[in-house]
């Protein structure tokens, strides 16, 4: 590292910046966006809009926490959008059919954990790349969902089921979930053996094995955990509107993966934080909203997303090259 010879204070700052560089960039971008767009169109800063940016996209941030762990472990999951759609539909159906609310919340999450543990087992023991397994899973979940529901919407869900719409202490519960899960996941990744083994497996699988980690078990565990986060995201997604459309939210997996990558999770595995991915999910939500308030057609949103992934990935590759 170039700053090694300077005074200790600089070195700490340098270490901090190089450790959290991406997170700081994303955070500053969010602040800059709020200032600039707010100055052009003050309605951007209205309570309703800020509420919809944070509460309406918390489920994406939560799914991105799980996705970040998957990518840190050196894998990927392109079926998460379909999984969230399936979870939302199962939860809504259970709630409408009159099952106890806690069952309507927890059973779909359990389903997500089991499905993803299965995916993880396939990935870990057969060595089939996760992209292929999850591509297959994507079409199974998507096709299964549309066949089972015939595209019918779910309405008339009981009010006590709508957890995303509750506002403990005046703040939407979706935001509470987002903040709490981000903190818990950060601590988990940093301070538990399992959390650290995720980084180790993603950094170098054989080295991790030599260090006494069981990479197969770690991969299965990561996928199961990812299922847990996707499950919570699915429940929030199901309960944020009065209707569940029983379809796979378009491009959700892409948004989730992008949040992880832009938040600083290296696509080559081994590094990254979930604080970054949560911030990046918020940044996207801000960009999407800002486009509307700046009268830019929302049709360009995906092109912007694509450019951002590309730019981040190229920067990541450049940084890795200069680190060597």
């Amino acid at each position: 590292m170039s700053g090694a010879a300077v005074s200790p204070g600089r070195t700490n700052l340098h270490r901090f910046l190089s450790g959290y560089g991406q997170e700081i960039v994303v955070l500053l971008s969010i602040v800059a966006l709020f200032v600039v767009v707010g100055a052009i169109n003050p309605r951007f800063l209205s309570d309703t809009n800020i509420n919809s940016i944070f509460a309406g996209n918390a489920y994406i941030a939560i799914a991105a926490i799980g996705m970040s762990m998957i990518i840190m472990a050196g894998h990927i999951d392109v079926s998460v959008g379909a999984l969230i759609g399936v979870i939302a539909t199962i939860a809504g159906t259970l709630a409408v059919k009159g099952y106890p609310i806690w069952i309507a919340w927890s059973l779909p999450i359990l389903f997500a954990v089991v499905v993803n543990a299965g995916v993880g087992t396939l990935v870990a023991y057969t060595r089939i790349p996760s992209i292929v397994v999850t591509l297959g899973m994507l079409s199974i979940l998507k096709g299964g969902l549309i066949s089972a529901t015939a595209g019918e919407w779910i309405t008339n869900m009981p009010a006590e089921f709508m957890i995303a719409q509750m506002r403990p202490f005046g703040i939407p519960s979706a935001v509470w979930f987002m903040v709490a899960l981000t903190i818990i996941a950060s601590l988990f990744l940093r301070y538990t053996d399992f959390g650290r083994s995720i980084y180790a497996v993603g950094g170098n699988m054989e080295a991790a094995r030599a260090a006494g980690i069981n990479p197969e078990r770690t991969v299965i565990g990561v996928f199961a955990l990812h299922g847990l986060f996707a499950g919570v995201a699915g429940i929030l997604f199901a309960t944020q509107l009065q209707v569940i459309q029983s379809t796979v939210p378009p491009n959700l997996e892409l948004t989730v993966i992008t949040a992880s990558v832009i938040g600083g999770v290296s696509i080559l595995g081994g590094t990254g934080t979930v604080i970054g991915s949560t911030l990046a999910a918020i940044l996207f939500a801000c960009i999407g909203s800002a486009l509307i308030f700046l009268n830019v057609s929302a049709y360009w949103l995906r092109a912007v997303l694509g450019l951002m992934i590309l730019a981040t990935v190229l920067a990541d590759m450049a940084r890795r090259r200069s680190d060597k």
Partner: protein
Amino acid sequence: MTAAKLFRHETILAILTVIAMIVLASLSDKFFTVDNLLNQGRLMAEVGLISLAMTFVIVTGGIDLSVGSILGLTAILLGVFWKNLGLPLPAAIVLAMACGTFAGWVNGLIITRFNVPPLIATLATLALYRGLAEGISEARSVRGYPEWFFFFGQGEVLGVPFQLWVLGFATLVAAVILGLTPFGRATYAIGANEVAARFSGIRVNATKLWIYTAAGFCSALAAVIFVSRVTTTRSDMGTGLELDAITAVVLGGTSIFGGRGTIIGTALGLILIQALKNGLALSGVKGDGTIVVIGLVLIGAILVGALFDKNRGG
């Protein structure tokens, strides 16, 4: 690996395809008719063209997730060049196809020049190209193409759909290139061991750049046929096509890790999938049910492949 082993997978696949055909024919008497089979060939052409290029991509150990988006972008540009910019339709077709090919070249450039893993590079361009298509079209569709244009997607030559001729010709060309030329051998060498290939003087980056560019070209060609077949352009055209193409290639025996695979296998994989889709639909399974089957077939095929690999002591 000997030629005998290579042929074994294709033989099994061919037998499987025949069995599937017999079963499907017994389930519905509409399945095994000339009309239906030719019509299925028509539907197969777009994904077929892309699968041919995808075979090369996967043999090098790469992947291209952006093919469906390139198809959508090319289709939208074709409509915009013709309708909004007022270019003559032939010029619009050529220009749009050039853009689609360029999009493939950009993929190759990102992958070879900046060392970005193909999965991530094409995931980003999947979003970018589809986003451009959406942004440029603003969800408006273009219709009202002249009658002659529909020949590419709906016309027939000697009683066989035009695009089936195109697909047949492209399959032949791809099979010759991959199987019989130095370029094909370079493709296998890169997939088997990229570093070794580099040290043996193979121009790895140039080869890969050509292959990703070709994938762009095939997607663009498929776009023209697609637009001509359905007589309209929409920005969501070709969504999810990458999955169909990858499934066909992998089902055809191409190793997802690279280094192994044939065009014949891909062609058989394509036929099997199309037969399954069509046969299941004819026997009453709804459209979305068939996606489930394809997902299961994909995972199953790779699982079986992986188990064989293990038994071989690899």
